[in-house]
């Protein structure tokens, strides 16, 4: 009797299983209000960056010496800086640079770091132990900013090169993390069972191990985006990132530093946006991680 009962329940539920899976995943995400909030804010930020030209009330590079260091007003919502540029417009344009810097450099780090970490952790051996691991150790032992600075200096100034430099600096973190995860998972019985079933190493790595390392990668990636935005800011400050007069949140923050007493709004708004961006990407990342975990309800 129990059996028939169950069958009827099951059949009504399982009509289009793939759809059902997607539906439960989205439901899971929707239930996580913080993640939804993070997602909405992240989406808004990307939207702002994409449509900066239409959204910004002023030209972000236009200098207006009659309106220098003005406090926020109805004309200049976020006030003006030392050259009389509209901070609201600069923040909007800055979103382009900062989000690019965050997403693309982390993308670079993932593209390089994930395969190296997976292969290195799965096959172990001499190259893993003595070359890849020692190299990551060496890179991690140098402060991120110093390393990025050196790389950016070699590659030359400019946003693209800055992103490549930041991406490379972030890579060893991912290699280490993923290698560690792979080491833990390769000993698990389900991997052994896969091998025993004759599944190729390639499939085991890609289909079995990688999905099980998504959670820590997700967390690390959202944190890295935040770090990348800040490192880009520092590089810009030192003249190796975005070139003036183009705005980035980082360079604006750097300018504002000198006026913290007299005109705190110059640093406040880009600073607040970096903070909001990092938090929302983090919340959204957590939500995605939970969404992908079949064990979460």
């Amino acid at each position, binding site marked *: 009797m129990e059996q028939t009962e*169950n*069958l009827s329940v*099951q*059949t009504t539920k*399982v009509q289009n*299983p793939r759809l*059902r*899976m997607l539906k439960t995943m989205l439901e899971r995400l929707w239930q996580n209000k913080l993640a939804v909030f993070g997602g909405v804010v992240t989406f808004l930020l990307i939207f702002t960056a994409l449509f900066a030209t239409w959204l910004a009330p002023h030209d972000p590079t236009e200098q207006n010496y009659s309106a220098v260091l003005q406090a926020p007003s109805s004309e200049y919502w976020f006030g003006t800086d030392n050259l009389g540029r509209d901070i609201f417009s600069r923040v909007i344009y800055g979103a382009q640079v900062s989000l690019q810097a965050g997403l693309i450099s982390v993308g670079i780090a993932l593209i390089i770091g994930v395969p190296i970490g997976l292969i290195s952790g799965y096959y172990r051996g001499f190259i893993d132990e003595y070359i890849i691991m020692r190299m990551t150790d060496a890179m991690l032992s140098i402060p991120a900013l110093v390393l990025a600075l050196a790389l950016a200096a070699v590659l030359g100034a400019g946003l693209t090169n800055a992103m490549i430099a930041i991406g490379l600096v972030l890579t060893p973190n991912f290699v280490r993390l993923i290698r560690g995860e792979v080491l833990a998972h390769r000993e*698990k*019985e*389900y991997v*052994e*069972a*896969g*091998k*025993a*079933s*004759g*599944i*190729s190493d390639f*499939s085991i790595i890609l*289909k*079995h191990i990688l*999905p*099980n390392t998504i959670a820590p990668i997700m967390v690390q990636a959202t944190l890295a985006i935040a770090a990348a935005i800040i490192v880009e800011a520092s590089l810009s400050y030192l003249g190796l990132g975005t070139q003036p007069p183009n705005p980035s949140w980082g360079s604006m923050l750097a300018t504002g530093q000198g006026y913290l007493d007299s005109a705190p709004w110059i640093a406040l708004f880009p600073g607040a946006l970096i903070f909001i961006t990092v938090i929302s990407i983090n919340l959204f990342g957590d939500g995605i991680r939970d969404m*992908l*975990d*079949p*064990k979460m309800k």
Partner: protein
Amino acid sequence: MATPQMEQSTENLLEIKGLKKYFELGGGLFKQKQQVKAVDDLTFNVKKGETLGIVGESGCGKSTMGRALLQLQKPTSGEVYYEGQDIAQLNGKQLRKLRKDIQIIFQDPFASLNPRMTVGAMLTEIVATHEIVPKKERQSYVQNLLEEVGLKAEAYWKYPHEFSGGQRQRVSIARALAVQPKLIICDEAVSALDVSVQAQVLNLLQKLKRKHQLTYIFISHDLSVVKHISDRVGVMYLGKMVELADEDSIYENPAHPYTQALFSAIPDITEDHKERIQLKGDVPSPLNVPTGCRFHTRCPLATEYCKQAEPALEEVKEHHLAACHYAE
């Protein structure tokens, strides 16, 4: 269980000769490397259609043996002939092909299934790898398989955590069966299950064996389970086989003192407090294997001679091998 004799042939499906698996431990700049002799010189055959039970306590090397047979861990030395072909000599590609014939079921029904894959995806992948059935028929093939092991076809769409322990072990069995193997190594396959569920799974294993003419190597620490399911039983101690005989013969007349002690240690509900052969102390560390007979440190019958000479696994009577100087 004893399958009727006629089902068993004398043909050997698997011949193991001098199988050894040593692990290197530690080692470094100032430390000497240590050697763990997990499996030390095993020689035995597995007959087509039989269930060979392997029993022993933790650390005796029974699980390592199972993995070494499958080349999941490369044996240090020794030969494993499967239908006349030495498995240890195969390259990666040939080995993957052979894995269609020999399968393994692990103990832990929680760790042995990928938590991120539905049961269907997991099984279909294996079926696809070995091209068991055409692409169109894969799903129905897998669903039939799930029904055969006592699950509902809907299990295809479920994730491992949606099942109970017993059901997961059924999924593991289905996964092993998916490639239509000839030999299945059951490594503590029922040890993590509750008694009533354990009985269900044991019955299922026997049913499948009859239906698909399977051969089992059934590794377990539980003597009564091994006795129940096996035709022949091998007892391992510290990496060695100390006794190997037909199930009834080893139970009626255990020749090795270790086997005797092992049997007497099982709490049995059908007997009132029976006399026990109490073994002294613990199993010695495999890092530091005793000289001579490995069992002499705990053996109630040990003599000076046992400390020096290692006994060989020899026939004490027909089809009954034991490694003891004093076994009669």
